């Protein structure tokens, strides 16, 4: 809250009470909000939109590239494995075609063939020839398997049926994974025999692990029961059951996304290898593969957040600055309007007063002459000249005319703007003169008057007549407010480098707070019905301003009022 208080722009809570139907024009908070909203909208929305689109496009392209790479890897590897198995099958096929059943039944010959196979292809462990009845007639290899009856076994039936059989992987005699390839050979007239070979899967593993599977990936073969046929990096070793489900049968290379037991998202590419029980699987951790993208994404988001922050800061700053300027300009405008209004008012009053004075002066002049003539005539006739009552009356008329003339001249003087005459003036002398002028009244009402003059008050350069009028008006005003026997205190002191302050303090009735602001307004009078014109203080204020000074008032109802006239020691040059 404290921060908001310091940051809150000055226009925030401003309400122009005088704006009326145009208040909307001066609702600066609304103006600011609208500006900020529109600018932020225009700047941020396209930025966010472009970023979102870019995000989507980049993510999609990265994902599709991963998919493409994975499926390509799967197909290539499948082809390699197919080819590998096909090659060995073909080798066996060649052997059965090249050799007669009789020659294959010769153990030495068979041993020679096995040795050749080992040397040229590698990985062959044993060879056996199975006669048409299903008995293994000859066997070369590490076991004693001669005479074993295979006729009831599933693989044997399959090889008879389809001509070739490739078995699941099993652990051989040295606990090394092996698989069996068997081919049937028809000798003619419905007679056939089978050549069976065992291969270790060492070479196989090379084929599968050679693909450089990026991103914590794994490549392996499983059989259709979900048993691992080759070792894997993170899905178990040979003949373990795979934790992932066995994928659905498909002719083509397929890609699926699955979640593993640990909740990681995996991309699984698989392919069924034809005529074998094997399914090639390549499993990649998607998170791992997307890592570079996540890094880029973080940068993108950081850039977006940074840009939005900068945009917001700039927009808020600029909007606040501009609206503030408009607000200040508007405040200036209002002040000017008030000033114009005030000076118009003053000018109108001045013209009015002068007009009234002029209009009254003419009939007053006639009264003056007529009364003067009457007086002249009376003075010439002895009987009238000695009539005291007549002479008194006519003198009263003439002195009343003189009083009226004084008032009208003062009103005219209010308008007459004769130049200020500059003199060196001792303020104490001037105030004394003024108080002496009012001495009779002060004496009569037994006022206590004190003058305090501080020592460091210099002579000032100003207009004596105006100063007298100013002090006269203020003191008169005080006298009117005071009870008989009241106290009046005049203090003259220096106020700052080049100013002098004259304070006139009374203990009169004071001015209510509500009226205090208006005491310098023309025709504002509280002495209604008591002969006040409401012009005295207004004229005084005008005179003080003419002298380049300032007048202030402080008052407390019932306790008294103090007027302070502040005057420059030397008149300021007019601008």
């Amino acid at each position: 809250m404290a921060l908001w208080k310091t940051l809150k722009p000055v226009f925030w809570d401003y309400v122009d009470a005088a704006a009326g139907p145009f208040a909307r024009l001066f609702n600066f908070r609304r103006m600011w909000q609208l500006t900020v909203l529109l600018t932020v909208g225009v700047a941020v929305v396209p930025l966010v939109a472009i970023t979102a689109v870019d995000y989507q496009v980049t993510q999609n392209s990265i994902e599709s590239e991963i998919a493409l790479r994975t499926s390509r890897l799967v197909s290539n590897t499948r082809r390699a494995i197919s080819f590998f198995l096909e090659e060995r099958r073909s080798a066996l096929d060649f052997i059965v075609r090249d050799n007669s059943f009789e020659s294959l039944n010769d153990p030495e010959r068979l041993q020679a063939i096995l040795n050749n196979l080992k040397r040229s292809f590698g990985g062959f462990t044993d060879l056996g020839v199975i006669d048409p009845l299903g008995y293994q007639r000859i066997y070369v290899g590490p076991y004693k398997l001669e005479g074993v009856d295979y006729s009831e076994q599933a693989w044997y039936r399959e090889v008879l049926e389809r001509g070739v059989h490739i078995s699941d992987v099993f652990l051989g005699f040295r606990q090394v994974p092996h698989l069996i390839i068997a081919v049937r050979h028809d000798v003619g007239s419905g007679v056939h025999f089978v050549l069976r070979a065992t291969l270790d899967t060492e070479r196989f593993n090379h084929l599968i692990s050679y693909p450089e599977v990026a991103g914590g990936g794994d490549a392996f073969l499983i059989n259709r029961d979900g048993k691992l046929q080759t070792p894997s990096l993170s899905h178990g070793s040979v003949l373990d059951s795979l934790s992932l489900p066995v994928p659905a049968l498909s002719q083509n290379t397929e890609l699926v996304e699955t979640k593993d037991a640990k909740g990681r998202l995996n991309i699984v590419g698989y392919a069924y290898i034809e005529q074998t029980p094997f399914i090639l699987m390549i499993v990649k951790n998607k998170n791992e593969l997307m890592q570079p993208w996540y890094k880029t994404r973080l940068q993108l988001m950081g850039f977006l957040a940074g840009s939005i922050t900068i945009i917001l800061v700039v927009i808020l700053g600029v909007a606040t600055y501009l609206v503030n300027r408009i607000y200040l300009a508007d405040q200036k405008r209002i002040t000017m309007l008030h000033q114009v209004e005030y000076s118009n008012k003053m000018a109108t009053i001045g013209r009015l007063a002068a007009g009234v004075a002029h209009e009254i002066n003419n009939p007053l002049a006639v009264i003056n002459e007529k009364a003067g003539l009457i007086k002249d005539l009376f003075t010439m006739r002895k009987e009238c000249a000695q009539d005291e009552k007549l002479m008194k009356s006519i003198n009263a008329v003439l002195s009343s005319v003189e009083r009226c003339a004084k008032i009208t001249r003062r009103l005219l003087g209010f308008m007459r703007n004769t130049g200020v005459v500059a003199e060196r003036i001792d303020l104490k002398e001037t105030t004394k003169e003024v108080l002496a002028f009012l001495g009779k009244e002060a004496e009569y009402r037994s006022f206590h008057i004190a003058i305090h003059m501080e020592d460091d008050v210099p002579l000032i350069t100003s207009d004596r007549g105006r100063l007298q009028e100013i002090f006269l008006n203020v003191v008169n005003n005080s006298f009117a407010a005071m009870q008989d026997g009241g106290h009046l205190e005049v203090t003259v002191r220096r106020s700052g480098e080049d100013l002098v302050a004259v304070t006139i303090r009374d203990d009169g009735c004071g001015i209510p707070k509500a009226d205090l602001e208006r005491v310098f307004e023309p025709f504002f009078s509280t002495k209604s019905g008591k002969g006040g014109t409401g012009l005295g203080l207004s004229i005084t204020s005008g005179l003080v301003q003419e002298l380049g000074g300032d007048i202030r008032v402080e008052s407390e109802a019932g306790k008294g009022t103090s007027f302070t006239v502040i005057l420059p020691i030397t008149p300021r040059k007019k601008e």
Partner: protein
Amino acid sequence: MKVLLVDDEHELVSTLAERLSLRGIQADWAVSGEQALALAERNSYDVAVLDVKIPRMSGLELKRRLNLARPAMKFIFMTGHGSEDDFRSCAAETDEGCYLVKPVNIEDLIRKMNELLTASEERP
């Protein structure tokens, strides 16, 4: 001393003329500029007392035209309007600044006229 009084206020000029004659000053009066010019044609006056504002012709214009006819004539202006413009233009027209605000005290007027005449006698 012969005086010409010009003011559109008939009661004012006539009474003023009468009061002056009571004091031994011969005073003629006119309520318009034309009348005043006609009087000045026929008689010669030492001093003319003019209102600054008379109908159809301003006091200042009347002063210029009287001055043509009677170059020796002295002028005093009277005005009901104490505006600064009046004061300045009158001060420009008359060297001594003979400018009185209505209502005029007759003693002041006579003193002013005497001052003017003695001043002109001192520098013939």
